[in-house]
């Protein structure tokens, strides 16, 4: 899908709206969570006039194992809201996670849960991606999550799962470098080797965020409330010249620093990716 690197992006948060629409230079691109605009889509217009947008969803729950190829009832309702929003502001692409957030029995986990990497999961996700691509008419990328656990009995690695998906559906990889780093630390892999397992030639964007280590659990969690670690920036160098990236996007949900600090992180990442 690449038509060139757009640059440094940040996740849009309402608290920054006035500054983003003010006279100071903003990011090169904004990442929007469309769920925040379903009730008031007109609030997107001013942002779309000024910035290229990408949509990032957290609740489409592509892996919920219901028979309906669109997804469960909540997904169907969200797809119906997404379509007009996409037509309205024409995002470069839309992404969500390779995960499920709701179970077929109607329980809402409220967060991303990994899918077993099996043929059954693969068939479900690939078929659903085709349906969504046809319905939404927008390029779709899936993101690697930070795994809270690894399913036993996987028949392929997640990287191989992604490789098949990008090959067979044309979807992109929205590579969360922080999630990958924390997976490597939590489950005993070498970060750069793990990164190289993924189909980097199909990575459309990178996410960068901060996280914390719990001494009690001996576990890293992507809390999105800390500055980005140096090792995340270091891993970006692996992507240079390999991944057809459109954007490097900083995710920060809590303990928001001044906008200038977020922009500085995003610009540093973009500059690293632009280096020859």
């Amino acid at each position, binding site marked *: 899908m690449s038509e060139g690197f757009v640059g440094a992006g940040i996740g849009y948060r309402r608290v920054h709206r006035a500054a983003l629409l003010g006279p100071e230079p903003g990011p090169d691109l904004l990442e929007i969570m469309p*769920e*925040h605009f*379903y*009730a*008031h889509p007109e609030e997107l217009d001013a942002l779309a006039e000024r910035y290229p947008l990408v949509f990032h969803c957290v609740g489409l729950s592509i*892996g*919920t*194992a*219901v028979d309906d190829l669109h997804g*469960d*009832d*909540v997904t169907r*309702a*969200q797809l119906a*809201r997404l379509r007009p929003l996409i037509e309205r502001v024409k995002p470069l692409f839309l992404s969500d996670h390779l995960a*499920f957030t*709701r*179970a*077929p*029995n*109607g*329980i*809402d*986990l*409220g*967060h991303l*849960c990994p*899918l*077993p990497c*099996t043929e*059954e*999961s693969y068939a*479900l996700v690939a078929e659903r991606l085709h349906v969504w691509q046809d319905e939404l008419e927008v390029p779709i990328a899936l993101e690697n999550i930070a795994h*809270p*656990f690894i*399913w*036993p*009995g996987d028949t392929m690695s997640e990287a191989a799962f992604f490789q098949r998906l990008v090959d067979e559906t044309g979807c992109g990889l929205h590579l969360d470098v922080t999630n990958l780093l924390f997976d490597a630390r939590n489950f005993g892999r070498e970060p750069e080797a793990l990164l190289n397992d993924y189909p980097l030639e199909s990575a459309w964007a990178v996410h960068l965020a901060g996280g914390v280590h719990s001494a009690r*659990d001996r*576990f890293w*969690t992507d809390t999105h409330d800390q500055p980005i670690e140096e090792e995340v920036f270091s891993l970006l160098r692996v992507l240079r010249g390999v991944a057809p990236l459109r954007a490097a996007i900083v995710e920060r949900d*809590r303990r928001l620093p001044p906008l200038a600090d977020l922009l500085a992180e995003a610009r540093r990442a973009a500059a690293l990716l632009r280096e020859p």
Partner: protein
Amino acid sequence: MNVLAKLQDALSTILTDGEVEEVYRRSPGEAIVAVAERDARDTLAGLEAQEVLRYARGLRRKRWDDVAATVPLSVRVIGGLEGRYRTWLQAHPPEAQDTVVPVGAAEALRALVDLADDLHQDPGEAPWAAELLVFEVLSTCSRADGVLRGLQAQYAIHRIAEELRKGLVPIDPPLEPHAYAFGAGGVRMKRLG
């Protein structure tokens, strides 16, 4: 029903149902037999129980963080709000719902009647605490989805909220019944009596 669906149903029950989680903590195998169909059990039994329990804890923490962000004033003055919510959550596994309301507000709305009742009945809490919670939740929800919602309060909650935003905690505010109407454009109010 396919194996993936069975795995998701069983795991989500372990992760969100307080009683099942307690059994799982003591004896993972016993909980798995209780909630999973036969062909999903081996896979679930292969999960690290400590990792599943840590994840369940994380899900609850995220849920509370989302709720707390919706009701910052209530969090400031209702000391045990987090504990009350967590106790409530253990008995009310979250259900999928289609809404345009932000996740934290939707979850606060789901728990609102029970939490407000609980606060009303607690003589240790400020007598206006429950009304403040309702005020914060309904105003956020109605701003987001445009649905009109109402509150008949015994206190001038808008004024109490204003004080709290300034960092002041009102001491014994007078009874001043008000009717509040919440909508997309904000809150309208009328003094009663």
